[in-house]
């Protein structure tokens, strides 16, 4: 009697910049692809994001950063997830991230980073194809 349930994805903006066009479009696209999107709004701290992700038992966290603070913020999110034993939650992101930083962040554990101009369908496909380990 177990039912398959929709993926639960946290979508939010960390850091101080308020450019939420992209993140809202992604939230809508994931919803339209049949997922449950928990949207946390602007100006989230890494601490808030991780606490929310755990309370909501999400499968993945998608974060947008356009202010250049990506290295600090993504690393902090990964670190906190690990501390809480929740590093099975996939972290992906979007924003203005130079190639060099993309490589470093992927090495640190960010699953994917989508730059400006990425088609929404690519992001949806990526999330859909996440391994269902849980």
């Amino acid at each position, binding site marked *: 009697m177990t039912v398959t349930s929709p993926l639960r994805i946290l979508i939010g903006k960390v*850091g*101080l*910049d*308020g*450019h*939420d*066009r992209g993140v*809202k*479009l992604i*939230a*809508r696209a994931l919803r339209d692809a049949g997922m449950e999107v928990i*949207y946390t*709004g*602007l*100006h989230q*701290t890494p601490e808030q994001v991780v606490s929310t992700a755990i309370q909501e038992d999400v499968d993945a966290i998608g974060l947008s950063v*356009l*202010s*250049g*603070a*990506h*290295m*600090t*913020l993504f690393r*902090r999110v990964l670190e906190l997830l690990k501390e809480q034993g929740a590093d099975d939650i996939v972290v992906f992101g979007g924003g*203005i991230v*130079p*190639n060099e930083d993309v490589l470093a962040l992927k090495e640190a554990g960010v699953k994917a980073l989508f*730059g*400006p*101009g990425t*088609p*929404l*369908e690519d992001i949806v496909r990526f999330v859909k194809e996440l391994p269902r380990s849980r």
Partner: protein
Amino acid sequence: MNERKSRFSSLSGIEIHRLYGPDDLKNWSPDRDLGRPGEFPYTRGIYPTMYRGRLWTMRQFAGFGTAEDTNRRFRYLLEHGQTGLSVAFDMPALMGLDADDPLARGEVGRCGVSISSLADMERLFDGIPLDQVTTSMTINGPAPVLFAMYLAVAEKQGIPFEKLGGTLQNDILKEYIAQKEWLFPPAPSLRLVTDVVAYCADRVPKWHPISISGYHIREAGSTAVQELAFTLYDGLTYVEAAVKAGLPVDRFAPRLSFFFNVHNDFFEEIAKFRAARRLWAREMERRYQPRDPRSLQLRCHAQTAGCSLTAQQPMNNVVRTTIQALAAVLGGTQSLHTNSMDETLALPTEEAVRLALRTQQIIAEESEVTNTVDPLGGSYYVETLTNQLEEEAQEYFRRLDAMGGMVAAIEQGFPQREILEASQRYQREIERRERVIVGVNGYVEQEERPIPILKIDPEVERLQVTRLAELRKARDPFKMAGAVASLQEAVAGGENIMPPLIEAVKAQATLGEICAALKEVLGTYREPVVL
């Protein structure tokens, strides 16, 4: 005859016909709707000679790292023929936070220059006499505070305020609509804007106290019509607030300026500038009947569309920017910023900035488009588009009036929702390849050739944090606290914020301390949820 598509439409979704002719302009009167350049309704431009008299100001927005880093970039730009400065602040400054605030972690000096104190502002303009340049400052929520710092620097340089020229963005309404960088609720924020307007009218007469900005509205995904409508309506809201505060319209309206985006749809963008001037003149005339014709004139700065740039094949961005810059010039802008090709990747390198500036210089010096005023005036197509944009913007005006004005509309989430819907429509068109973006959904290259990018040293943050600690230790704490308390009292009592604010920054109160103190008096804001 077969055509490539069943429907041709502008970037904003206006249906475009195969051909335009006299029938499209049946109700159009050149005398009424076009006029002469420099005359009502200013469709053709606000000056009789336009670029034959004086070229536009080439003003490149710049700021990163510490005040010293940006000061060096400013000097570099001035040496290369730029004619005005434009300060980009970092995110903590834009949000009224100090560099050592926990929320500022990782953000210091990243997307603009880090300024937390008067000492930082002094370093930023070191060796640049403020009466020799004009300075544009892109700052909104904490605009009065940064402006007070600028005035304090001028005072220290011995330059009377009457000689200062420049622009403070100070447009808080578009923050609630689009950019989401506010400190206080809309009503008290509007009052601070009015305070700055009144103070400038009195003390800094050559300063532009607000730059009413459509740029960010467009970047948030709006159409050209929405950009035009919401921006001009914001402008009317500021005018109304100032008039209600007792300022005669001709005391401040001539110093208002606008700031538009220039996107890819060449003719639609040109029409947007023309419609903006005509609509502003007509609305100002209808609502306030100013005596001074300059109160009717829409002056503007333009910036090429950051959101049109692609991370893929970044060199293509040079071409996009050139087309957009040309549209702004043919639209009759007073000043222009051209984006650099690498801005979807990071802050621009010096090399990229120089190329962007050279783009403007080539248009100005080589293309000969500056030889005549409003060269597209009378074009059936451009005039029709100008009419359509004006009419559709007026339709938005009616809806906003019916809602009780812009603040009420913002609190209901109306402009936010309109923009979100527009941006989703646009995104869908790209996903379905109804619009092709070269390098993104067409002409894609598998191998991307990397271009050099600017790195911000993480040391910047540490340096700023140390400096702030030293500043807090060295200043007179009683003097500082007293100045901040007087500021709070003055603001609570409804006095103009500027004089006590200048005293507070001179007493070494930091940006973050001042903004926190102001929040105690003015409150904070949570936006309506629009999803």
